[in-house]
């Protein structure tokens, strides 16, 4: 995964069943959430997801870190 100066890391979460929670499947580097979504959809296509979201890593708050 590459990271241009104008890009940031987006964590990718998805689920393939309605009764499952979203779980972390990977990350992408992208200049916008829209492009991150395009990348995530094409890279993490191993299942027929029913939901996928991307979250900027910078927006995530660490709670426990050992």
């Amino acid at each position, binding site marked *: *995964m*590459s990271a*241009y100066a*104008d*890009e940031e890391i987006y964590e990718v979460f998805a689920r393939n069943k309605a009764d499952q929670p979203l779980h972390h499947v990977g990350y*992408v*580097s*992208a*200049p*916008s959430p*829209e*492009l991150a*979504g*395009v*990348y995530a*959809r*094409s*890279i993490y*296509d191993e299942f027929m997801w029913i939901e996928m979201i991307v979250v900027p890593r910078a927006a995530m708050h660490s709670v426990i870190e050992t």
Partner: protein
Amino acid sequence: MSDELAPELRRALADLLLGLVDTKQQLGYRYAEWCTGAPTLEAATAASAMAQAELGHSRAMLPLLDAFGDLLPAEALGDQRQITRAAPGLELSFAGWTDFIAANTIIDGVLTTLFELATSSTYKPLQSRTRKMIEEERYHSAHGQGWTLKLARGGGSAVELLRTRVAELLDATLGWLESFDIDTLAQAGVLSGGRDELRSRFLQRLQPTLKACGLADEALAR
């Protein structure tokens, strides 16, 4: 089913279907050439996915040509078929990533606009194939727009090159659209809008890209 159509309508429909099949096939080939050459690994994966989608769409539509064999050139049919009716700008390999993005935006965009006008088509073999294609094209559009904005933000020679290529492709693509008998197709309900509606929707779809390239006003004057 095509035998039931009026001769003028059959000719117009055969020509449009060939244009769609050929353009998607050629666009898929051009995208595929960048599976190993895109600027980032993410973009390469997206190029690969888009190539697969375009070739899949072309293959899914290919059987539709069978009903019009008497109207189409012999080289457009059969196992060894050749591409004869693709949108201009795809004849040669893309010279650079900006060419890829320009085609991604302009040519992918015009195809999606055409399919959107066919979602309630009276010609069921076409109508039944539109939903999945439009859904997948949503991501192609986001890719083209995302990269256009990225290049525009970066400024410099890349955006100049993109502006030039977008302007060239837009002119060529509008000319290609004019070559189809869209109004005959619209009058029969094969498409839900005529030539003016198609052109207007296409330019509207391109607005974010054209604005980013500084071409919005110029495009409206075309």
